[in-house]
């Protein structure tokens, strides 16, 4: 997992009126074949969590004590906690400040800045790390980790917050002003509280990314749980040590999920009343114009300029020689192949879940969604570990095949497809399906001609985001790819690990070029999602 789609939309409840309850001869919880299918998908998505839990339970207390309570784990714990505790607040502050400048002030060029602030998402964190190591070879430790991950991940807060800011009902702020608050007080007492959900959602995503990231930290030799699990796994293959570290990591993730849901509580900030919404007001910058421009420029130079500059520099240093040979073309083709296969499989698996969630909201659906939400928050390394072991022991026929890798992609990127499909299905209410049936179309035809047709654009959007995730996925791909697999990410990784920075540069460039349009899509979509 590496990029959010709008978290605000993701967990938005569907209003459930009686008209939506039950359908045809089905029950309230949905037609049973769909429920069975969804249960299977949810069970599949719980594999990694189940694996870690089983391993931990089987290990016995002595093993746990021996493997978990030792100085090495303490060191990893310190690094990981320090990383999260410093990076997350930084991302929140930068994200909110950037979003506010871009969406709510008359800063010159705010439209261009709006795109530029989202753009760092197109650069995989491990490519960012590679560029920074090129710039400062000695970079490392907590400082290096915080620097790189802040620059890579602040858009995860910026995008949802900007989306909410741009759609916030100006009437609330006007009420604040009419009650005697000045502009700053309005911001802190009216605007900021409304950003809480978006910011908390973004912060959660940043934290989960920090826990899951392998490449960026391995590159600067900064040890976190994920890098340690990876090393353990490489050296001992299926050691209990890797499993124990994984269970600590999973525990971390679960704590974060819990924390975020506590912050969120039952709060839902919906606009009350109807009517056309005016655009929110923009404040004049005045004397703050220059500091504002400088701040955004500095941020853009660090997050976008440095990586692009160094990728281009290595390309120039390498000359035309680095483009020859078939390796690059092979990697591009394989990446596209995995991306497309993964996007299709993930979207297909997500569809029944989204369908159930929108058309038959209820306790069963909630449970299934919850299972999917938790399991998709598992770091790639845990998913990979689980799938390796399970495939070896239970289905050896698929071990070391593309099937397992695509399965991992589906587990990791399902929420992206789910969020989009849900939004799409919400645009295709059941009433339209029924209208088609009343016009003489059999249920299946009605479903194809209306529901599926109306959901198609959203499904394509979701599939594109899954594709983007797969293109930039490194950790699970390294562990699960069949022998001989060369994707852009794995080739980039093996070349840069051999300090062949010039040879790695074309791969970095291709990944950035593939990601750029989809990052823009994500950015554009977040604006729409917040308005729903």
């Amino acid at each position, binding site marked *: 997992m590496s990029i959010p789609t709008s978290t605000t939309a993701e967990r938005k409840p569907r209003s459930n009126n009686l008209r939506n*309850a*039950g359908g045809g001869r089905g029950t309230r919880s949905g037609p049973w074949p769909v429920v069975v299918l969804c249960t299977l998908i949810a069970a599949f998505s719980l594999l990694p969590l189940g694996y870690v839990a089983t391993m931990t339970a089987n290990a016995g207390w002595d093993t746990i004590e021996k493997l978990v309570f030792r100085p090495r784990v303490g060191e990893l714990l310190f690094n990981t906690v320090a990383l999260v505790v410093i990076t997350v607040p930084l991302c929140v502050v930068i994200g909110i400040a950037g979003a506010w400048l871009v969406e709510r002030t008359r800063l010159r060029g705010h439209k261009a800045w709006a795109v530029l602030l989202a753009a760092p998402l197109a650069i995989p964190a491990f490519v960012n790390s590679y560029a920074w190591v090129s710039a400062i070879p000695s970079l490392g430790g907590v400082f290096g980790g915080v620097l790189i991950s802040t620059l890579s991940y602040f858009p995860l807060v910026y995008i949802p917050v900007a989306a909410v800011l741009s759609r916030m009902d100006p009437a609330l702020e006007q009420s604040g002003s009419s009650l005697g608050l000045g502009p700053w007080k309005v911001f802190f007492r009216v605007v900021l509280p409304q950003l809480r959900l978006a910011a908390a959602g973004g912060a959660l995503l940043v934290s989960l990314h920090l826990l899951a990231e392998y490449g960026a930290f391995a590159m600067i030799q900064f040890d976190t749980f994920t890098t340690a699990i990876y090393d353990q796994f490489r050296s001992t293959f299926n050691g209990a040590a890797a499993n124990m570290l994984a269970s600590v990591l999973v525990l971390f993730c679960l704590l974060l999920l819990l924390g975020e849901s506590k912050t969120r509580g039952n709060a839902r900030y919906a606009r009350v009343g109807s009517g056309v919404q005016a655009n929110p007001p923009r404040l004049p910058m005045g004397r703050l114009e220059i500091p504002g421009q400088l701040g955004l420029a500095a941020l853009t130079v660090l997050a976008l300029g440095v990586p692009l500059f160094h990728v281009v520099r290595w390309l120039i240093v390498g000359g035309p020689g680095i483009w020859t040979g078939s390796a690059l073309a092979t990697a591009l083709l394989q990446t596209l192949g995995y991306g497309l296969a993964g996007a299709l499989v993930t979207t297909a698996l997500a569809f029944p879940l989204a369908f159930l969630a929108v058309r038959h909201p209820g306790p069963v659906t909630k449970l299934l969604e919850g299972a999917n939400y938790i399991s998709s928050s598992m770091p790639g390394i845990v998913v990979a570990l689980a799938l390796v072991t399970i495939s070896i022991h239970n289905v050896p026929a698929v071990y070391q095949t593309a099937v397992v890798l695509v399965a991992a992609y589906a587990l990791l990127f399902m929420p992206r497809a789910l969020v989009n499909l849900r939004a799409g299905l919400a645009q295709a209410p059941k009433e339209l399906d029924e209208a088609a049936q*009343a016009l003489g179309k059999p249920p299946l035809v009605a479903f194809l001609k*209306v529901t599926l047709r109306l959901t198609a654009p959203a499904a394509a959007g979701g599939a594109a985001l899954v594709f983007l995730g797969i293109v930039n996925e490194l950790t699970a791909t390294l562990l699960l790819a069949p022998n001989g697999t060369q994707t852009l990410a794995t080739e980039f990784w093996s070349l840069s690990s051999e300090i062949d920075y010039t040879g790695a540069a074309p791969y970095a460039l291709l990944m950035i070029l593939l990601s750029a349009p989809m990052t823009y899509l994500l950015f554009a979509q977040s604006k729409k999602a917040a308005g729903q």
Partner: protein
Amino acid sequence: MTTPRRPAPAASPAPAFAPDAAHVTDHLLVSGVRKSFGATEVLKGVDLTVAQGRTTAIVGASGSGKTTLLRLIAGFEAPDAGSVALDGVEVAGPSAWLPAHKRSIGYVAQDGALFPHLSVGQNIEFGLPVRGRAAASRVAELLEMVSMDPAYAKRRPSQLSGGQQQRVALARALARQPELMLLDEPFSALDAGLRVATRRAVSKTLSDAGVTTILVTHDQAEALSFADQVAVMRDGRLAQIGSPFVVYTRPSDRATAEFLGDAVILEAWMEGSLALCSLGGIPVRRPSVQGRVHLMLRPEQIRIAEGGNIHGRVVDTDYFGPETTVRIQLAPIAVDPSEPVDPHQPVGGEVISIRHWNAMLARPGTQLSLKVVGEGVVFPWDG
């Protein structure tokens, strides 16, 4: 023009208040229908008969089960018990199930449910068999039928106003020449002025086409003006079925009376066919109870009349422009001191609300004379 596949309705329409005339056949027969969602029983045994070519309104508060009943008739839901028959053929019941798309029923949803990805013309053609689609003139015909310019066929649903969307939805449903048209609160999303105009247009189109129609609504005025049979739904049951005039003037119980319009409810003592109350003795046709009762009159039955024999004092007024609501304190019921008094006899002296066109006439404190026109309805005393 649509030519209904079934025979055209009888040339001479049945008299408005005798819907069960022999030559009219039952088109829809709903009997003993029950439906629950989870633990909530939404329909608790509903019986309804709709005659060929007639218009029935099912009216009730939200949550009374009226939309569920409509969805059962349409085939979007199946009843837990009871049956639905169309033209004498059971389409839903213990041993029968005909899915929605095979029922030859037209359905217009609350918001029209136009397909957003299709143009107006494509929406209208949607239900037609592919070979029947060729004629653009058919679409134009249908649009004209719902009083819309054929040029609209090229537009997108999102470019239409709410009233236009409703009319396109109706044209789409009419395209297949259904025998039964179901309208689920089709006017409720429209603003007041548009609502009346759209309702008239729809009503005219449907009666011209001779389609049997069922309208679900929570708006009693809409139900009374649209239909020639009104079914009042309450708590999952049909409390009363009858012509608009009958259900309005002779409601079967107090809740129905109050739901269908403003009602003046007075304590009264029923003796023979006369109800004794603060307004004097009011005639009641075929009273179901005697003794202590509630008497119901419609406000428009009570008029301010020079020389009337009922007296009251104006408490206050609400001015609405064309008319004024006047609240009047009535005098207590006069008791003959020589006769023994039944402790259950009403004492009267209630405050009632009536309407009057002249706001100047009724200033607070004014003494007024009133008279009552027509008959009252009595309901058993419920404390």
